[in-house]
């Protein structure tokens, strides 16, 4: 009898949890598609959150809008177009390549090429410096003077 009660008591949290986890939408396929798409879209209210993760009211409305458009048979591109027409490229976490964003897309590579070029020129210049050339008489005298004439007068 006692064992039964313990088992029942242990079972209770699971039952409670099972009640909480209701299906997200009637259509899990659309839901998956919507989440996948909106993960790459920015929420305009909480700008560091994706549209998929934000609890802002506008994000909820936009997710609902995306769901409805997907159910109506719109492609992912059409849905994204719908959003960028209203909110601009700002909603895209991956902005399109166009003259305005060239600096954004290619700037880092240009910087890298410039830096590598600079490094190459620097190394080359250093490499050309004569290393094995023997010291001239003048230089030997200076070395001796600087080292403080430690007996070894030449």
């Amino acid at each position, binding site marked *: 009898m006692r064992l039964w009660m313990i088992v029942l008591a242990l079972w209770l949290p699971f039952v409670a949890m099972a009640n909480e986890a209701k299906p997200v939408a009637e259509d899990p396929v659309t839901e998956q598609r919507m989440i996948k798409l909106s993960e790459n879209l920015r929420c305009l*209210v909480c700008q560091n959150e994706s549209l998929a993760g934000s609890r802002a009211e*506008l994000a909820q409305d936009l997710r609902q809008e995306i769901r409805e458009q997907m159910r109506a048979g719109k492609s992912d591109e059409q849905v994204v177009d719908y959003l960028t027409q*209203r909110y601009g490229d700002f909603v895209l976490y991956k902005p399109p390549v166009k003259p305005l964003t060239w600096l954004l897309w290619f700037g880092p590579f240009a910087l890298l090429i410039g830096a590598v070029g600079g490094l190459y020129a620097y190394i080359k210049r250093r490499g050309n410096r004569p290393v094995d050339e023997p010291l001239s008489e003048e230089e030997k005298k200076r070395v001796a003077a600087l080292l403080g004439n430690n007996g070894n007068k030449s």
Partner: protein
Amino acid sequence: MKRFLIPLGIFIVLVGFLAIGLKLDPREVPSPLIGKPAPDFKLALLSDPAKHLSPADLRGKVWLFNVWASWCASCREEHELMLELSKQGVVPIYAMDYKDQPGDAQAVLNRYGNPYVETVVDLDGRVGINYGVYGVPETYLIDRNGIIRFKLTGPLTPENLDKKILPLVKELQQ
């Protein structure tokens, strides 16, 4: 001496970029709707739900379209200035009550005064989405041909009214 000038120059340029970056407001998202026709709608009036208004009814007029809500604190901030502007009679202000209880909105207008020629009600925020509304208050300036010429995100201030909106209104009314 010369070798210190290059890092110093780079440093100054970097500080310049960072200083500009500090002053930019990330909340100000440029609207892609500028220069495009104002999205169409047909919404019920707050004053009389049996009557409707759409942008086509306002063709031939330069008008301001203010999106607000009774639950929005910064809308209350700009309310005084809206009243003043409407008294001046330079440009008619139409409004959209965004995702709100019409009763609450009417109560605000009754209590603080009504600067709007008409207010339409966007209960579910659908028209708001079409206008790219993401944070009320937002104000659009629409020209005679129904083209959006300017969008202000955030409350109206004497500064942006005098410097941006009113000069543009004058220009469009000519």
